[in-house]
C-alpha cells in the first residue's frame, strides 16, 4: 500500500487511523527516491528522516496537526543547518549552513519530516530545470525523458509529481514554481510577496523572490499557507498583516479578468479550448468574466523588465560567493587570482553572463537607461495590473502556452526581445507586482499536463484559494501524480 501519492489530508487520516506510521512513510519515500530516475535530489535525509520518524512513531498522532509525520522535500536554495545546501551550484558543493530557514523551522516545528533537498536551476536562475550542477531534472509525466519539468524549482516539482512527497517547498522569482506546476499537473502557489518569511532563502532577486510551494490540491495549499504565512522579525519585508483562515473555503461567484494580449498569443488549440471551456463553466457558476487589454507593448515589456531587474539584483546577491567563508575554494598565489578561479570555475557560463548583464545595467553611466528604466517600467506594469485587480477579483489565464517543452527547445536561446513570447513569459507580472498567484491543472495534451493560472490582489489569498478551488471542482483535476 502506498500513501505518498495521496494528498496531505488523506495521509494524515491514515496516520490518525493508525493505518500507517511516520516510519512507514519515510521508508516508502526513501524507497521511491532510490528508484527514482528523474534526477530530482541534491541530498536525501536517509538517516535523519528514519531517526525522526522513529521518534514520531513512538508518539501519539497530533490529530489537529495535518502536517504531523508528513514527509516533504525542499528546494536546495533554502538554508538547512548542517545539511548540505548547494543551490545546485558547483561553487557551493559541500556547504553546510549554520542556520535554518524560517519556513523549514516552521515545518519542523509542525513535525513534518524533511526527506530531501531538491535540484534547481543553478542559483534558481533559469526556467528549464537543466542548468544545475547535476544536470537535467526530468518530468515524471514524460517517460521518454525528452521533456523538461521546468524550473527553477525542478526537483521539488518532480518529487511531488512522482508521488514521492505530498508537498514540496520551492521559490518563485519569475515563475519558478507556477510554470513547473503547469508542466507537471500540480498546484503551484506563490503567495503575496511578504506573506511568507524569506529568512534563509538564498536571495536571487529580493524585490521579486517569494517562497512558494507545490501540493496536489488547493486545500493542501491553503493548509500550508496557514503554517508558513505570517510575520517574522528576522525578515523585515515580511508583512505584519495578520494571516486568515485560508482553509475555510466557501464557494461564491467572483469576477475574473482575461488579459487580451496574453490570451491572443496562445497558439495551442487544445490549451485554448480547455481554457475557453473552463471560462464558460465558470460563467455557468455565476462568475463574471471580462477581457481587458493592457496593450501589446506593455505585455511584451513584462519579461524584459523582470529580466533586467532580476539580473541586476542577482549580480549583487551572489557577490558573497567567493569560496572564502564557505563554498569551494581554490589554490592561488593571490586573493585576486583565487577569486577569479573560484568564480570562473564555480559558476556556469550562463550564470556569469547574466551577472555581467546585471552589472552593466547598474553602472553609473547606464543605470538611468537600463536598470532604472526597468524599475520605471515596473511601476507602469504594476499600476496597470493594480487597476485591473481593483475592479476584478482575479486575473485568469493559461499558465503556459504549451505542454512541457523538449529539452533543447530553448537552444539556441530564446531572444525575448525579438520573439515576444508573451504568453510564455507573462507570469513574472505577479512577481513585479508581488501578487498572490496560483497554478493548477487544466488539462492534458499527448498525455502531458498543462495548467491554468489565477492571480489576485495583494493579501487576498483567501479569495484566490476559493476561486482556485472552484476551478479545481470544475476540472476535476486534483491529487495527480505519475509513477
Amino acid at each position, binding site marked *: 500500500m502506498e500513501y505518498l501519492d495521496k494528498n496531505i489530508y488523506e495521509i494524515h487520516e491514515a496516520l490518525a487511523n493508525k493505518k500507517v506510521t511516520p516510519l512507514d512513510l519515510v521508508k516508502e519515500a526513501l524507497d521511491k527516491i532510490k528508484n527514482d530516475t528523474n534526477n530530482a535530489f541534491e541530498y536525501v535525509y536517509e538517516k535523519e528522516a528514519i531517526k525522526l520518524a522513529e521518534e514520531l512513531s513512538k508518539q501519539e498522532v497530533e490529530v489537529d496537526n495535518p502536517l504531523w509525520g508528513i514527509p516533504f522535500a525542499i528546494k536546495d536554495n533554502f538554508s538547512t543547518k548542517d545539511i548540505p545546501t548547494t543551490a545546485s551550484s558547483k561553487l557551493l558543493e559541500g556547504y553546510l549552513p549554520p542556520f535554518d530557514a524560517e519556513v523549514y523551522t516552521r515545518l519542523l516545528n509542525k513535525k513534518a519530516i524533511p526527506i530531501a533537498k531538491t535540484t534547481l536551476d543553478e542559483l534558481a536562475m533559469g526556467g528549464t530545470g537543466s542548468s544545475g550542477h547535476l544536470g537535467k531534472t526530468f518530468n515524471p509525466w514524460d517517460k521518454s525523458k525528452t521533456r523538461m519539468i521546468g524550473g527553477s524549482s525542478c526537483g521539488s516539482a518532480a518529487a511531488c509529481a512522482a508521488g514521492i512527497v505530498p508537498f514540496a517547498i520551492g521559490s518563485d522569482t519569475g515563475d519558478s514554481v507556477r510554470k513547473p506546476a503547469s508542466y507537471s499537473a500540480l498546484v503551484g502557489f506563490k503567495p503575496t510577496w511578504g506573506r511568507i518569511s524569506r529568512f534563509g532563502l538564498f536571495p536571487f532577486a529580493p524585490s521579486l523572490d517569494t517562497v512558494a510551494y507545490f501540493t496536489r490540491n488547493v486545500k493542501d495549499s491553503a493548509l500550508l499557507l496557514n503554517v508558513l504565512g505570517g510575520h517574522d522579525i528576522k525578515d523585515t519585508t515580511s508583512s505584519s498583516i495578520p494571516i486568515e483562515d485560508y482553509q475555510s473555503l466557501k464557494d461564491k461567484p467572483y469576477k475574473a479578468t482575461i488579459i487580451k494580449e496574453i490570451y491572443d498569443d496562445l497558439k495551442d488549440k487544445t490549451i485554448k479550448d480547455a481554457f475557453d471551456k473552463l471560462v464558460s463553466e465558470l460563467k455557468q457558476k455565476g462568475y463574471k468574466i471580462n477581457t481587458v487589454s493592457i496593450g501589446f507593448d506593455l505585455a511584451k515589456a513584462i519579461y524584459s523588465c523582470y529580466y533586467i531587474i532580476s539580473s541586476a539584483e542577482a549580480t549583487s546577491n551572489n557577490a558573497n560567493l567567493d569560496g572564502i567563508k564557505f563554498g569551494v575554494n581554490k589554490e592561488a598565489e593571490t*586573493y585576486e587570482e583565487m577569486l577569479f578561479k573560484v568564480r570562473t570555475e564555480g559558476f556556469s557560463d550562463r550564470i556569469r553572463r547574466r551577472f555581467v*548583464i546585471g552589472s552593466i545595467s547598474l553602472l553609473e553611466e547606464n543605470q538611468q537607461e537600463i536598470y532604472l528604466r526597468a524599475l520605471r517600467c515596473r511601476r507602469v506594469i504594476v499600476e496597470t495590473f493594480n487597476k485591473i485587480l481593483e475592479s476584478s477579483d482575479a486575473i485568469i489565464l493559461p499558465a503556459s502556452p504549451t505542454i512541457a517543452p523538449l529539452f533543447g527547445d530553448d537552444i539556441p536561446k530564446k531572444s525575448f526581445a525579438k520573439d515576444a513570447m508573451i504568453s510564455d513569459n507573462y507570469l513574472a507580472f505577479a512577481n*513585479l507586482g508581488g501578487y498572490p498567484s496560483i497554478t493548477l491543472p487544466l488539462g492534458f495534451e499527448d498525455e502531458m499536463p498543462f495548467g491554468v493560472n489565477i492571480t489576485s490582489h495583494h493579501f487576498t489569498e483567501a479569495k484566490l484559494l476559493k476561486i482556485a478551488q472552484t476551478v479545481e471542482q470544475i476540472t476535476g483535476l486534483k491529487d495527480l501524480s505519475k509513477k
Partner: protein
Amino acid sequence: MKKVSQKTLLEAAHNLMFDIDDIELEVLTEEYADILEAINHMQTIPNIDHVKAMVFPYELVTDYLREDVVDTPLSQEEALKNATKVEEGQIVIPKVVK
C-alpha cells in the same frame, strides 16, 4: 541605443572577479544586444522616463527596529567550519595585492 563594446563587457566580468572566454563573450554580446532592444522597447511606453522607479512590489514601510539586545553568536567552530584554511581562529587567504 546604448551600445557597449566587448571590452566593456569583459571589463565588467573582471570587476565581478571572473573570466569569460571568447565564445562566451560572443554569446554575451548577442544577449546584451537583446537587452538593448528590450530597453528601447520600453521607451515605447508613454512617458516612461518620467515615471518614478519602483523598488518594491508595493508601498512598503515599517516602523520595526530591533532592540539593541545581543543574541548568542555562532561558535567559532560553527563560523569557521566551511572555511578551507583556518589558523588560530582566522580564515587564511592568499595575500591581497591591491
